[in-house]
């Protein structure tokens, strides 16, 4: 609601008795855009770090100023009352006693920190800037965060800048000078016991460390707070790259991610037995021109009594289905693969080949289900379409080449799953109504670690 303003003249007041000043609604001026700050940095973060005597807590009394770009904050609550800034030389963690820090200090914001009066100390070997020091236990002085009313005094906010590129590092490069830096590690995967687990204990709000193994040797911890918004997300099982803030606790090397986009572990694992075939079917043993009947497979017509048939061309057998010349108003047919257990594997990928012929719009899709009972009514289960490439567009002939499905990742699934191919078409009267595309299917394969 906008509220009318009251003029400051008594006479107007008297007039207002008869002409209520309901028209005087003033729009307030919006504050000008933040044009950065004229504060200048006087020292590099590296210089600040170098001045620290290990094990000590120092009060900073010089009027020095550091600057850096925010690389981590509490946006997803994995960092608690903490932001991390870095310049080209090094990074530093700043402890701030407030919530919603990401609102004032978003990623990529340039900040200037007035060091005078702040404290530089360690927490488990991790160098941090704080507002005070608690010496209740003299042998373990504890750094206190900067009180929120003092933020504006200590921190000058500059412009939004481009995020610094993460530093691609090898295990040997993870030294204490790297503390707080935004790093990226290549060819890394979670230990088998830590895959497909929640990132942290979101029920009890406990921090969890998962072991990250680097293929060329070395390991570090992926540490996640139980308060993180992504704590309930399951860890990926594959191999790949991971970005994050490098931290230490004692002699432990740790990585803290900002959100799950920092984790790109979708490839095949390097450790273990290597990729192996979990399932393979090339249809070379099925009878020709007959229903596809393989042990533990199901070939089910939901409507229209049309089934996947065995076919052979140039000594290659495959499964084929079409609604052509069936005179059925609707055809829906399922080819359900045997149950596949994904528990003892990781980074599973499905692939298959398809060919289409005389395409006029019938559909073949591949589905996955975790709640199908294996019975003869698969439509009663919940199926999810798997994104894959299926042959299409051969309007006047049979496709000459098989279409590769692409590698369909099943790594987000666990336990026993069913995979099914479902054909949907019809043979209605009228040439424009028909959806009779013929599909050929071959080389169904699932590989995994």
């Amino acid at each position, binding site marked *: *609601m*906008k*509220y*009318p303003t*009251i003029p*400051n003249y*008594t006479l107007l*007041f*008297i007039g*207002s*008795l*008869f002409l*209520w*000043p*309901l028209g005087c609604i*003033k729009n*307030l*001026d*919006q*504050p000008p*855009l*933040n044009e950065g700050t004229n504060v200048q940095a006087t020292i590099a973060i590296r210089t600040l770090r170098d001045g620290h005597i290990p094990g000590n807590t120092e009060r900073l009394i010089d009027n020095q100023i550091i600057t850096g770009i925010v690389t981590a904050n509490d*946006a997803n609550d994995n960092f608690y009352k903490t932001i991390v800034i870095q310049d080209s030389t090094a990074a530093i963690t700043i402890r701030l*006693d*407030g*919530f*919603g*820090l*990401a*609102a*004032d200090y*978003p990623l990529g*914001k340039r900040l200037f920190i007035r060091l005078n*009066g702040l404290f530089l100390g360690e927490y488990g070997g991790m160098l941090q800037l704080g*507002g*005070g*020091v*608690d010496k209740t236990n003299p042998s373990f002085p504890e750094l*206190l965060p900067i*009180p*929120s*009313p*003092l933020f*504006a*005094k200590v921190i000058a*906010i500059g412009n*939004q800048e481009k995020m610094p590129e993460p530093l691609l590092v090898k295990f040997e490069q993870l030294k204490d000078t790297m503390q707080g830096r935004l790093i990226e590690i290549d060819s890394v995967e979670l230990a088998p016991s830590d895959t497909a687990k929640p990132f942290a204990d*979101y029920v009890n709000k406990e921090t969890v460390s998962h072991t990250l193994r680097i293929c060329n040797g070395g390991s570090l911890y992926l540490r996640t707070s139980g*308060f993180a*918004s992504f*704590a*309930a997300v399951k860890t990926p099982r594959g191999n790949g790259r991971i970005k994050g803030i490098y931290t230490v606790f004692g002699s432990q090397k740790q990585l803290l991610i900002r959100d799950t986009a920092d984790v790109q572990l979708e490839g095949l694992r390097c450790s273990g037995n290597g990729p192996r075939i979990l399932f393979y079917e090339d249809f070379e043993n099925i009878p020709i021109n007959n229903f596809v009947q393989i042990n533990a497979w199901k070939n089910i017509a939901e409507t229209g009594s049309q089934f996947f048939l065995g076919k052979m061309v140039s000594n290659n057998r495959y499964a084929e289905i079409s609604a052509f010349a069936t005179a059925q108003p609707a055809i829906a047919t399922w080819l359900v693969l045997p149950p596949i257990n994904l528990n003892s594997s990781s980074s599973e990928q499905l692939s298959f080949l398809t060919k289409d012929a005389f395409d006029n719009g019938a559909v073949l899709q591949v589905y996955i289900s975790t709640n199908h009972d294996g019975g003869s009514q698969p439509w009663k289960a919940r199926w999810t379409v798997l994104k894959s490439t299926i042959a299409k567009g051969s309007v006047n002939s049979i496709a000459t080449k098989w279409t590769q499905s692409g590698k369909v990742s099943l790594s987000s699934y666990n336990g026993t799953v069913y995979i099914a191919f479902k054909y949907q078409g019809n043979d209605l009267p009228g040439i424009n109504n028909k959806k009779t595309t013929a599909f050929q299917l071959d080389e169904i394969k699932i590989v995994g670690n």
Partner: protein
Amino acid sequence: MRIFLFIYFLIGLLLNCSAQSLAIQKKIKNQFLDSADFNLAFKTSADFHFSEAGNTSDEGNAAQAFVPSVLHASRDLFSSIAAFHYNTRRYRLKGLAPDFFQAFINDIPMNQLTDGMATWSNWGGLNEIMSNTQSVIGLTENDFSFGALGSATYINLKASQLRPQTTLSFFLSNRAYKYRFAFTKVMPINKRGWALAFSISNRMGNNVVVPGSYMLAPAYFFSVDKKIPHQLFSFVVLGVMNYSSRSAATTKEAIALAGSNVYNPNWGYQGGVMRNANMQYQHFPMALFSHEYQPADDLRFSSSIAFSTGEKRITGLDWYQAADPRPDYYRYLPSFQTDSLLRLQVLQLYQENPSLLQINWDRLYQVNRNSVTLIKNVDGIAGNQLLGLRSKYIVEDRVLQQNKFNASHRINFQITPKATLLAYMQFQLQQDHAYKQIIDLLGGEFYVDWNQFADDQLTNKDALQNDLGRPNRILTVGDSFGYNYIMRLQKFTAGTHVNAKLPRVDFFAGIELSEQTNQRIGLVRNGVFPMNSLGKSDKDRFSWLAIKAGLTYKYNGRNYFYFNTSIISKPPNINDYYISPRTRSTKSELVRNENILSAEAGYILNAPLVKCRINLYAAKFTNGMSRTSFYHDGYRNLVNYGLENISQSHLGTEMSAEFQISPSLRATTGIALAKYTYANRPTFSVAIDNEDFETEKGVLYIKGFPLAFLQSVAKNL
């Protein structure tokens, strides 16, 4: 007061009481002695003169004669002392909650069906026409309705029954407002039977005492009456548009830091202008039609219907994923720092920059302009994305739109010369529609209809959605969001009351039957409560009975002893048994009427030079329930603390005395002593606004504890 009563009952006759009272007294006294002609005794106005007569009556004859009754139409001394002196100290008469105090305009009940409170602010500022008002303290005899345990106030706004006047008023004040202007014209009934009254007023003030405070409250009133033989038709329209700032409680520490007793944390400068974040607007215009029919002197029918429609808006800040914008938030104050060095630093900071104790609007804009956010699946459509500035701070209105329809019918009948009968019916229908609305995005481009208090429910991704019908809805200025529900309430009341005045004893008894139906209608499906937030809830039907009776022994015209008692029942208010109507239809497990047994006894002395009243009262409340909602910093969420099965006992005495020192000088005194305690161990339950279970439940061991916020001793001289 006496003038108004005469206007009311002897229409067209304006009597100056002080000039003619003696003559009338004599006349009335003669009538008592000669009881053959007793018609006047029925009228309340006559009551007044009975007591005047009592003051001058000859006590020697009292044993045989009819002893005049105590008047109830004039103001009770103790309650006027309480109103003028104790109310400013938050004194509550007999320790009673506000819903035990009723107000009526032209017979129409003005208490909300939601919380039972009388809506005084809906006619605030129309002082000039509010003088034809009668108050009945406690459950005593009454010509209008059953009354209320606290008090019942009957306001008469019929043009022909207001004091004829042409008034231009101008007041200066230094409280909520600075100036008040009013123009009032009341034209008495003319030869053709028409009477007309209107009044307009305006209350205004900027920064009157408290910086950042504001009030602008124009009010209007119009009434027209048409009298034909035995009948009176009335039409009344009134309303108050009240724009004002809201006050906020702050801490002693913040007041000390600001160095000002009138420190107000609600405002801050924006572009050089003081901008207050906490504002309020309300306007509930009302139209009433009344009809009075008096076929004979001893029979009167009064009927009224009333319509009211309007809204109340509470304007305030809301924020999501950002620091608390209130400058006096306890975590920002020096005392929050446990380290002495840091405490000193924070203290110095505030001493050097007093502006830090006001809202920093500029910062709110900067934060919103920083807040580049990608919203996925806008409106629940997969792949529908929006990249832009999602406001982290907004100004929102919490809107309440209200429609009311009321009807009442009353019959007053003089059964015998000494006994009167009152019978009445009232019907009330109220519909409250509550929702939130975006008012200002403070530099951002949009807001999202998310529930900030549910975003840590990681296992339920839908929990974040305020409206599952439109997940991730993008909001701009003017959009409604958050909660959205309707409360539909209706109440039917019927009652009767007899009143007898015997020579030495006055007696009354009354009974009232009521039925109320409440229903919540959710308009959005909330992500945390998908199964019980949308649609109509089960209706709750409450039926209850109230009985009262009282006896006054008239020893003589100066000394009266009385005893009144009542047994009343009362349904719980909807906010007391709905756990959180904002989000869901869930109710308390045990919903039942509260029972109140009360009694009072006392002595009245009505001598020419000394008037004194001693009143002892006792009340026992059982099966009470209450619910308090507040932001809990530990849960970081809104919580609802519910109490069930509350029993409380109220015991006390009120003493008032008035001494006529000289014809123009009088001294009054009032003393109240009371003991308000819990009489059992109520059960409590704690429910978080955004979780579908009770987090705590148990028994409160508070038997014998005093009730909070009530004074046990009040004195005035």
